[in-house]
């Protein structure tokens, strides 16, 4: 379903070359829940950006749902991102002057859905995350956990095949983090493929599979020891 073969990503300036990913290869099957761990600067976020078509890579081959996405135009990659990929960010990234309904509405607008369809989906996903009664509230009127739930609702509204989560509980206390993780796990049980970057071994353990990145390469499927190293260091 997601197949990366020998992906390289090099950031170049006049003076220096930085290899964010080196011959990075990874296969993710439909319905997987993959946690990605690794030390800071190991290339986790770069991997996630490339997986989400937010960045072009320097070399290698990337297939998403069997389609080579390395040479897509901006409009094509935007459409793929809109239809197939949902994003959850550490800092929620809600638009402060839009209410919850309008925040969740953003990706649906770019999808071109009619008003009635958008309303049905928005109300449905907000109900799923337990915030249907607050859809006219602004993000600032919600707690951090609730804001992340809205971000999850926004990611789910388009019914994506993939959910890419970058430290989704990084800004939450442990109780709220666990609640959000349970929601993400439930979404995965519903059939959505999830790739989650995290530093937290407990959260990584909740995934069906762990991938460890070191120096821009997939080190291996993370062991408990490696997870513990990540947690301490």
């Amino acid at each position, binding site marked *: 379903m997601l197949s990366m073969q020998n992906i390289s990503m090099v950031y170049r300036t006049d003076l220096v070359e930085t290899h964010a990913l080196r011959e990075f290869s990874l296969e993710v099957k439909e319905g997987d829940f993959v946690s990605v761990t690794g030390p800071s600067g190991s290339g986790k*976020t770069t991997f996630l*950006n490339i997986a*989400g078509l*937010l*960045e072009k890579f320097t070399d290698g081959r990337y297939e998403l749902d069997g389609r080579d996405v390395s040479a897509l135009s*901006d*409009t094509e990659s*935007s*459409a793929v*991102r*809109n*239809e197939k990929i949902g*994003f959850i*960010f*550490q*800092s929620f*990234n809600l*638009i402060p*002057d*839009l209410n919850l309904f309008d925040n969740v509405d*953003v*990706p649906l*607008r*770019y*999808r071109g859905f009619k008003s009635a369809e958008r309303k049905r989906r928005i109300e449905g996903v907000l109900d799923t995350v337990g915030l249907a009664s607050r859809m006219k509230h602004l993000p600032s009127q919600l707690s951090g956990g609730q804001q992340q739930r809205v971000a999850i609702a*926004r990611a789910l509204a*388009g019914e994506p095949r993939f959910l890419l989560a*970058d430290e989704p509980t990084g800004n939450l206390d442990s109780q709220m983090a666990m609640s959000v993780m349970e929601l993400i796990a439930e979404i995965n049980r519903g059939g959505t493929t999830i790739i989650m970057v995290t530093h937290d071994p407990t959260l990584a353990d909740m995934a069906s599979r762990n991938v460890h990145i070191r120096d821009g390469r997939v080190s291996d499927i993370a062991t408990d020891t490696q997870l513990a190293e990540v947690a301490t260091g």
Partner: protein
Amino acid sequence: MFSYYLKLGWLSIRRNPLLSILMVTAIAVGIGASMTTITVNYIMGGNPIPQKSDELFKVQLDNWDPNDQSEGEYELPEQMTYLDAMALMRDRKAYRQVASNRSGLVLEPQGADELPFSVDTRNTWADFFPMFDLPFVYGSGWDDTADRNLERVVVLSKEINERVFGGEDSVGRSVRLNGMDFRVVGVLGEFQPVPKFYDVTNGAFNEAEEIYIPFNIAVEYEFSRNGNTSCWKPSDGDGFEAFLNSECIWIQFWAELRNAEEKQDYMAYLNAHVEQQKALGRFPRPLNNRLSDVMEWMKDREVVDEDAQVMLGLSLLFLVVCLLNTIGLLLAKFMGKSGDIGLRRALGASRSSLFIQHMIESGLIGLGGGILGLGLTWLGLAGIKMLFGDFVENLASLDWVMVLTAIGLAIFSALLAGLYPTWRACRIAPASQLKTQ
């Protein structure tokens, strides 16, 4: 999506009110300055009678001094002698023709308490009214018979009818002018051609006359002339009769010619008339008659003053400076939205959709600038009226075309100013923004 982008634009404007006010003000000041001069130029250069401006022709005959040359060329006189005007009126070779001049009479109201007052008068012919499409609220112009029979008839402007008859239907009633009774045959509605094309010589932006009387009556009773009179050689004798037979020019002559064939025939007639007069010892210059339609005549007489055109250029330059400021402000605003832009890119917005969104936001700012700019334009025109008084009363007014132009120019300017900031905003790499929100 358009309404969605409008909503986003409005939210964005509200999010940074100070920046938005600065941008709107920058555009408004530029629009206010440029629209003030554009309006004056527009009214100066407008077509005063668009429905038939290409059928109305100013008639010029070159009877002037052979020794008077400007840069080696003979300049055609603007007006016509009485001799020629009457010959042309007698022959009636055009579909319609009219000789007219400006004079002033004293009107004596009938009420015992009211004092006489002077009225601006046009001495003219029956064809004047249908030829120049004068609107009537009561009655009509006089007919050819009145011209021929020296009938003392008068057409009143709306203002004079209001002043003398309280705005009632005064047709058939009489008014006393220079001690003589004139029968009212018609009352005009609003009539103020700008420019006053039929008499540019005496002021292209003067008010239309207050009353209209037959030309022959004015000649018969030797009413004084208020308009320009030029002579290149002395009259043969003294008195009014000698003046009428002189080479002095003081009459504006217009002909209505409905097509190219009529124009060609009329020109041939004019040439024949001049050749005949040459045989009698007149017209010492080479044959040089001219027929200019309304807009050609406006251009020929340079109705749009050169100073006004320079002012227009300067004000447009000022608008450009305001737009450069707006570009800087828009750039700051859009770069400040990089987080929002990065997020939208992640959620599926293409560069083109973000481009449209931000151009619509620029357009909204332009709309605001246009509306405020209209207010400043109104102030600018009011300032011109205060500075120059009644002389520019007819130049300094906004019509709906100018209102739409102001709004359109403001939106267009804002879109132009928004191009570069929008392009820059759409180049923002989304990945770099999502972590930093």
